[in-house]
C-alpha cells in the first residue's frame, strides 16, 4: 500500500500491565512490524519498541503539542490514573514532574484519532477493581458511565469518539484490523457499538464457536475446573453474554479461554472487574443462573434447559464431569463402518 500517506502513531502506557502490547507482539501472519508497514503507519514512539529514551522522547512530545509533528493516531494502553484525590500523582510521567493524565489529555486534543487499547484504557478495567485505590478511569468511560478523562462529548476531528478496543488483554488482530481500517479511512461511527468497541469483533459472542457447545445444548455441566462440560451453569462462564469473537478467532494460534478449560469472564465489557460474585462461580436464584443469555426470555430458557437436561445423552453426561473423553461418539447398533 505504498500510495498511502504515512500516519504517525504514538503509543503511551499508563495504569495498566503492558499486557496489550505484549499480546500485540504475538501478532502473526504478518508480524507486528510488517503489519504497521502494510498500513503505512510510522511508529513515532512505543515504550517497548523505540530507541528514543528520556529527554529525546520528551522533546518529541513537545514538538507534537507545538504542532511541529503531526499526531494521527494516539493509542493509550492502561487506565488513566487520577489518584490520589484527583491529583494524578499516582502516575507521574517519568522525567517530568507532571501527572500522566495531563500529558494524555493534551495529546488527545491534537490527535487525529484516539484509541483506547484494552479494557483499562477504555473503561478503567482491572485497575479500577475493589475500591479503585488508584482512582483509575478510562479515556471516555468510567466503567459503565460515559465521561472518563476526556468527557462524554469528546470526538476527534473526523467525528469519532474514543475507539475502545476493549479486552483484557486485546487480541492482536483486534488492534491491527482497527489500525488498518483507520489508516484506510474506513472506520466510521456506525462501526462502533454502544460502548465504543469496534463492531468487527464486538458483534460476535464468545459463545459462537465454543467447542463446548454440544454440552451447552444439553446443559451437561462441568462441576470443577478441568471438567469438559459447559461452564455456564456452575463455573461462572459468561460466554453467552460476552461480546467478542475469541472462539472463532483463536489466541496464540490454538486457544481461547474456553479451549483452555476455564470460564469466560467477559473481559471486553465495562465493569467486568467487579462481577459482584466470585469470578468462577455462577450466581443462582432458586437453582437458576442469574445471568442468562441476554436475548432469550428467561421462561423459555428454563423450559428448554429442563427439556434438554432430560434428553442429555449418556455420552455428554459422563464426559461433562470428566477431564478426558470417557465415552466416544458411538455408532448405532448394526450400522456399517
Amino acid at each position, binding site marked *: 500500500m505504498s500510495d498511502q500517506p504515512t500516519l504517525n502513531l504514538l503509543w503511551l502506557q*499508563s*495504569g*495498566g*500491565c*503492558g*499486557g*496489550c502490547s*505484549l*499480546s500485540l*507482539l*504475538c*501478532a*502473526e501472519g504478518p*508480524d*507486528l*512490524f510488517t503489519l504497521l508497514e502494510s498500513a503505512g503507519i510510522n511508529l513515532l514512539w512505543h*515504550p*517497548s*519498541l*523505540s*530507541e528514543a*529514551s*528520556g*529527554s*529525546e522522547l520528551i522533546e518529541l512530545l513537545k514538538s507534537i503539542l507545538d504542532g511541529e509533528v503531526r499526531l494521527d493516531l494516539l493509542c493509550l494502553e492502561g487506565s488513566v490514573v487520577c489518584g*490520589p484525590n484527583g491529583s494524578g*500523582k*499516582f*502516575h507521574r*510521567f*517519568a*522525567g517530568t514532574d507532571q501527572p500522566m493524565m495531563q500529558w494524555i489529555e493534551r495529546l488527545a486534543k491534537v490527535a487525529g484519532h484516539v484509541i483506547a487499547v484494552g479494557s483499562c484504557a477504555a473503561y478503567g478495567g*482491572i485497575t479500577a*477493581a*475493589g*475500591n479503585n*485505590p488508584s482512582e*483509575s478511569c478510562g479515556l471516555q468511560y468510567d466503567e459503565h458511565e460515559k465521561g472518563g478523562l476526556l468527557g462524554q462529548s469528546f470526538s476527534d476531528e473526523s467525528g469519532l469518539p474514543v475507539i475502545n478496543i476493549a479486552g483484557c*488483554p486485546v487480541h492482536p488482530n483486534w488492534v491491527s484490523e482497527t489500525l488498518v481500517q483507520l489508516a484506510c479511512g474506513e472506520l466510521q461511527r456506525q462501526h462502533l457499538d454502544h460502548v465504543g468497541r469496534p463492531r468487527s469483533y464486538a458483534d460476535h459472542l464468545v459463545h459462537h464457536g465454543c467447542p463446548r457447545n454440544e454440552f451447552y445444548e444439553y446443559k451437561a455441566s462441568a462441576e470443577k*475446573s*478441568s471438567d469438559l462440560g459447559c461452564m455456564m451453569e456452575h463455573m461462572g462462564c459468561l460466554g453467552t453474554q460476552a461480546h467478542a469473537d475469541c472462539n472463532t478467532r*483463536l*489466541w*496464540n*494460534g*490454538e*486457544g*481461547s*479461554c474456553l*479451549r*483452555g*478449560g*476455564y*470460564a469466560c469472564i467477559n473481559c471486553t465489557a465495562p465493569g467486568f472487574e467487579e462481577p459482584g460474585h*466470585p*469470578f*468462577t*462461580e455462577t450466581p443462582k436464584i432458586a437453582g437458576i443462573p442469574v445471568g442468562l443469555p441476554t436475548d432469550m426470555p428467561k421462561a423459555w430458557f428454563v423450559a428448554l434447559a429442563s427439556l434438554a437436561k432430560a434428553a442429555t445423552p449418556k455420552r455428554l453426561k459422563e464426559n461433562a464431569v470428566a*477431564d*478426558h473423553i470417557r465415552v466416544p461418539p458411538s455408532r448405532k447398533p448394526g450400522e456399517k463402518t
Partner: protein
Amino acid sequence: MTRRIMGPFNRVEGDLEVELEIESGQVVSAQVSSSLYRGFEQILQGKEPADALVYTPRICGICSVSQSVAAARALAQLSGVTMPTNGDLAINLILANENVADHLTHFYLFFMPDFARETYRNEPWYELIANRFRAQTGSAAREMLAARAQFMHLMGLMAGKWPHSLAIQPGGVSRSIEMQEKARLQAILFGFRRYLESQLFGDSLENIVSLDSADALQAWSVEQPLDRSDFRAFLEVAGELELDQLGQAEDRFMSYGAYQLSGRNSFAQGLWETELEPLDSKLITEDISHSWMGYQTAPKHPFEGVTLPDAEIEQAYSWCKAPRLDGKVVEVGALARQQVDGHPLIRDLVSQSGGNVRNRVIARLLEIARVTLLMESWVREIQPKQPFCDHAAMPQEAQGAGLVEAARGSLGHWIKIRNGRILNYQIVAPTTWNFSPRDAKGQPGALEVALQGAKLRAGEQEPVSVQHIVRSFDPCMVCTVH
C-alpha cells in the same frame, strides 16, 4: 557534582526514572524510582481467595503466568491440595514458555538496540549490529517475533491464551493434554529449537549448555565467525566494550528454585554469597522508609506487611518498597538462578568478574538453551489420559505462600484468609528486589549499587552505560509497584 534525571526509561516494562549524581564523568550515586501506583493489594482485600487467580496475573502482562503460578501455589498451600505429575509438567511448560519468550524479548527488543545507537557509529562491529538490532527496523526483531509467536502456540494449546490465562489452578491445570496434542507440542518445540540453533546460537543447544568455563566460552567464540549468530555478535560487543566491567552490584544472589517436579526443583533453591547456603524465606522483610508508603513503622515480613500509599512522605522517592533478606540486599534473576543452581560456566564467570552486564545477559541466553531442553523432556513425560488436576476445598482461615522464579527472578505471594475471604495479600516481585530504593539504614538497592561508577562518554545527555546497566536486569516495573 551535577544531578541528572533520566526518564522515562523505555524498553523496560513499566515506568522508571533514575536520578544520577555525576562527578568527573562518572556516576557516584543513583536513586531509582518507580513512578506508578495501582494498588493490587488493596484490590484483593475482601475478595474470594480463588479470585486472586483472575486479578494477580493482571499485575503484569509480561510475566502474567509467573504471577498465576505464585498465586496458585499460595492457594495450594492454603487448601493443602496436591498436584498430579501431569499438573507439574503442564505448569512447568507454560511457565517455561513465558520465561523463555521473556528472555528472547529482552535480548532482541529491549537490550541489544542500545548498541545500534549513533554513539557507537565508529566501532568496528557497528554496521553488523545496527543492521541486525536497530530498534524497529533491524532484521533480528522480525525473525524473533515470528519464531516467538510460533513458540507461544504452546501457550494457546495448554493455557488458552497469553497473557492472563486462568488455566493454572492450585491443583494443576484446567486443560488436559491428549496424545495428539502431545505430538503437536513436540513439533512446536522442534520448530523453536531450529530457530534458536540457526539464529540465536549458531550451534546446537547441547553444545551451548555444555560450555563449562570462561575459557570454553572464549574458545567457542573464537571459532565462530562474527556473523554466525546473535550470541556470537553479543560476545564480540561485550568484549570490545568491556561489559564485564560494568554494573556490578553486591553479588549476593538468591533463587527460590525453579520448575518443580515431584517435589524437586529443576534449578536449585538457595542463597549465594561466597558459597551456596539454604534459603530461609522467613528472613524476608520489606522496608518502606524511602517509599511513598505509610502505615508501617518497621520492616515487616510479607505475611504482616501493609501496602498503603502516602504520596506526601518527605524522604521517599519511589512507589517501590525495599525488600531485604536478613537485612541485606540481594540480586535476583537468571544470573542469580544459574549461580545458585551451580551451572559451571556461570560459576566461573562470576568468580572472575562477579555479576555484571555481560554475565547477566550470558546467563539469560544460557537459560534459554537449558530451559528449552528441559521443555522437551517435560513434554516426553506427559501421560495423556492421566489426571492433570486435583481439587480440594478452601478453608475459612489459613495462610499460604507461593514462591516461584519468574524470568526476572524471585517472585513471592503471601496470602492470609479469614472467614473465607482475603484478609491480606502481599506481593514481592523480582524487580522489587533489584530496583529497590534505599532502606532505613541507607543501604541502596541492587541497581543503585550497580550504577555507581558507570562512566559517561563525551557529551552524553542519556549515558548509554546507564542504559546498558539498567536493562541488563530486564526490569519489570509494573510487577514492582503492583
